[in-house]
């Protein structure tokens, strides 16, 4: 991963690396100081504008975020499909760690760090799963959600 960073020191490219059988790491640079990137991650009214891009084909119905150590969050996508968990650690402008509890025991812990370098911010996000199997089963969230949407549609059509 270090070699990659060197070859593309601050290119705004999203890279994904599997650090181990149960950890995925995403890196991306942003042309802004860390406090602004952190703000966009920690204020619900800003967060909801980018967390569910149109290409995901989902709509965020409700959002509750208490971004501080020990605080909770809950993202509702309608029809009882909620993503929720707790913030294990929040250090303003530099780090947010949270649990993903909707998958029960197979839930991952997400760690995001914001590292400012010359007015730009390097974001490193790690998703650590309890086991290899949990990671393999995780999919990308969007796909699972999409699958669920289609299942709901199927059910609706079957009833009609």
């Amino acid at each position: 991963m270090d070699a990659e960073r060197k070859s593309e020191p601050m290119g705004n490219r999203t890279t994904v690396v599997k650090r181990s059988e149960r950890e995925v790491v995403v890196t991306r640079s942003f042309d802004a100081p860390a406090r602004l990137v952190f703000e966009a991650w920690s204020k619900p009214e800003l967060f909801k504008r980018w967390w569910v891009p149109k290409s995901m084909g989902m709509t965020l119905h409700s959002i509750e975020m208490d971004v501080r150590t020990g605080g909770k969050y809950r993202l509702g996508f309608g029809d009882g499909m909620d993503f929720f968990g707790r913030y294990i650690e929040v250090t303003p402008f530099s780090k947010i760690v949270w649990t993903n509890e909707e998958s029960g025991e197979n839930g991952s812990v997400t760690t995001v760090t914001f590292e400012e370098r010359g007015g730009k911010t390097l974001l490193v996000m790690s998703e650590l799963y309890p086991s290899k199997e949990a990671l393999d089963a995780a999919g990308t969230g969007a796909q699972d959600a999409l699958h669920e949407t289609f299942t709901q549609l199927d059910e609706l059509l079957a009833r009609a």
Partner: protein
Amino acid sequence: MVQYTQSHFDASFAALSDVTRRGVLEQLARADASITDLAGRFNMTLTGMKKHVGVLEQAGLVTTEKVGRVRTCKLGVCRLEEEAAWIERYRQLWDARFTALDAVIEELKRKEKADGRRKKK
């Protein structure tokens, strides 16, 4: 950027380091075969062949399925390809999010400028 975990490479290379196992892969590329078939063809005991197939299975190069008393072996879906596809889907999701995040951050930057840099770094 796709990278693979060391353990996958290790498992694949270990599996391919043996001449019999490479032969088994060649054989399975032509047709599926039972462990008994393979043992006969490579002049080995059933137990020996089971071990080789086990190593190939572990590396994701071969899959086996037991129907009745016969365990049939076939070439596995390449795990590396599967993993590359998984990583690419994951990357696309995050790339879409971060493109949207760029727009939000640009707006924050503009706003901060307009506010006359009230906030000190």
